[in-house]
């Protein structure tokens, strides 16, 4: 795909002015970093950084049947949204129990919801959701919101910095618990993120995005690219769609069992297939015990059988390489495996994830 065909967010000019190194991500021309990915990573762990995530798509779902429709569409249970503003993380499955996408859905009060889906899958998702709507709940209205920009401000000082730029927002958002959102005029503010740090995700009309971006930078928030977003989310043990799971994978095979609400008899799409399919593998963490960097698709071998790294990186916080990997179902944290890194098989320890939370290592004590 040539650069001219790539889509751009409302903040594209701001990125160029900040000397962003741009990359193709899911058909979007997005910042990879603004000089140093590792420095951006540390800024988010220690202070505050801002990511343009406007390539992701917000889809508003409204109507009397919206809640029951989402109860059919999503593997997690929309009934868990008992308070207006509350957010829920869920997989959306196909009839075979494969993961079409992972997403966040917010209850905006009454019969209004907002889903946020991944950029690379947005077109496919929308087509699927419309088809299911036509079949299950024809009265439900779907509004893709390409008119909105999304900024993720993350880090221990992120909320403080947002209030510094937008003082009127403090009263609205100071009491927000984690995974809760509130709307303040045209501004949607959620205490959510993809980094393992505190912070806000903000949705604003596209025309207001650049002013907010500039004010955040003026307040000392570091512009951060998708490179740092990837190392932060991996340290935080968060899945990346297309890498750690896809349509060929069930949530049970992707470490997402906790997001599948099987209590009761709710008939969500994919449920019947999940009951039939025995998981072929389990997603677990790996910690490389030697110098080197674990990366996607590296083969794994162990006494339990073989597997594959789904996401691997150098962890800037831990100063060593970590990964998420598909391992035989019998594999257990504490065991050793070998990973093929270039032409050598290197020892790695199976560990639980997250690896880092709120700036602190969560590695087991026996790891040196």
């Amino acid at each position, binding site marked *: 795909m040539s650069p001219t065909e790539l889509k751009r967010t409302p903040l594209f000019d701001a990125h160029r002015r900040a000397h962003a190194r741009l990359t193709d991500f899911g058909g979007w021309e997005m910042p990879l*970093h603004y000089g140093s*990915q*590792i420095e951006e990573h540390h800024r988010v762990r220690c202070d505050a950084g801002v990511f343009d995530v406007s390539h992701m798509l917000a889809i508003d779902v409204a109507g009397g049947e919206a809640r029951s429709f989402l109860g059919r569409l999503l593997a997690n249970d929309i009934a868990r949204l008992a308070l207006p503003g509350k957010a829920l993380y869920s997989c959306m499955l196909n009839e075979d129990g494969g993961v079409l996408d992972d997403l966040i859905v917010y209850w905006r009060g009454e019969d209004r919801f907002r889903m946020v889906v991944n950029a690379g899958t947005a077109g496919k998702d929308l087509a699927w959701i419309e088809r299911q709507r036509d079949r299950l709940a024809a009265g439900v209205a779907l509004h893709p919101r390409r008119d909105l920009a999304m900024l993720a401000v993350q880090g221990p000082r992120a909320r403080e910095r947002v209030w510094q730029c937008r003082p009127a927002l403090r009263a609205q958002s100071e009491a927000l618990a984690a995974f809760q959102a509130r709307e303040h005029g045209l501004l949607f503010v959620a205490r959510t993120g993809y980094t393992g740090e505190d912070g806000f995700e903000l949705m604003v009309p596209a025309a207001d995005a650049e002013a907010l971006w500039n004010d955040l930078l003026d307040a000392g928030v570091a512009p951060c690219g998708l490179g740092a977003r990837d*190392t932060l989310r991996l340290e935080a043990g968060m899945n990346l769609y297309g890498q750690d799971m896809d349509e060929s994978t069930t949530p049970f095979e992707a470490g997402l069992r906790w997001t599948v609400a099987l209590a009761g008899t709710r008939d969500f799409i994919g449920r019947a297939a999940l009951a039939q399919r025995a998981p072929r593998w389990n997603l677990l963490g790996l910690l490389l015990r030697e110098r080197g960097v674990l*990366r996607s698709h590296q083969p794994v071998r162990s006494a339990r059988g073989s597997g594959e790294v789904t996401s691997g990186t150098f962890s800037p916080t831990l100063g060593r390489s970590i990964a998420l990997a598909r391992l035989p179902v019998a594999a257990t944290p504490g065991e050793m495996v070998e990973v093929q890194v*270039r032409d050598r098989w290197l020892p790695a320890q199976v560990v639980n994830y997250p690896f880092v939370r709120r700036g602190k290592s969560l590695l087991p004590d026996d790891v040196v």
Partner: protein
Amino acid sequence: MTVPADLKYADSHEWARLEADGTVSVGITDHAQDRLGDLVFVEAPKVGQTVAKGKECGVVESVKAASDLYAPVSGEVVAVNQALAGSPEKVNQDAYAAWMYRVRPSDPAELNALLDAAAYEKVVAADQH
């Protein structure tokens, strides 16, 4: 992207500098570090090891990718820059100060056969398309 005029270059993006004592210092170019992004490991050849021109002799790993180091000249490795083991970011900060290893060249003519700055700039320009 800087390409100092007083260095020699390989089209595999290493630079080589003839030192006063007759040894040759080797590193990766500014263009190479820029392409790789933040470096996290430098695995240079070891002191005493013999390297051969055009052959793999080490690895640099960045957050993005692993990349082989190729020897721009043949010879015996006489020193390795230990400072890079703990601080690979020095390569990103100043690629031409961050030498990786020094070699006693077995054939000084090899150095002269490397690219000069103008020729290497053309390699970089072609690489950017």
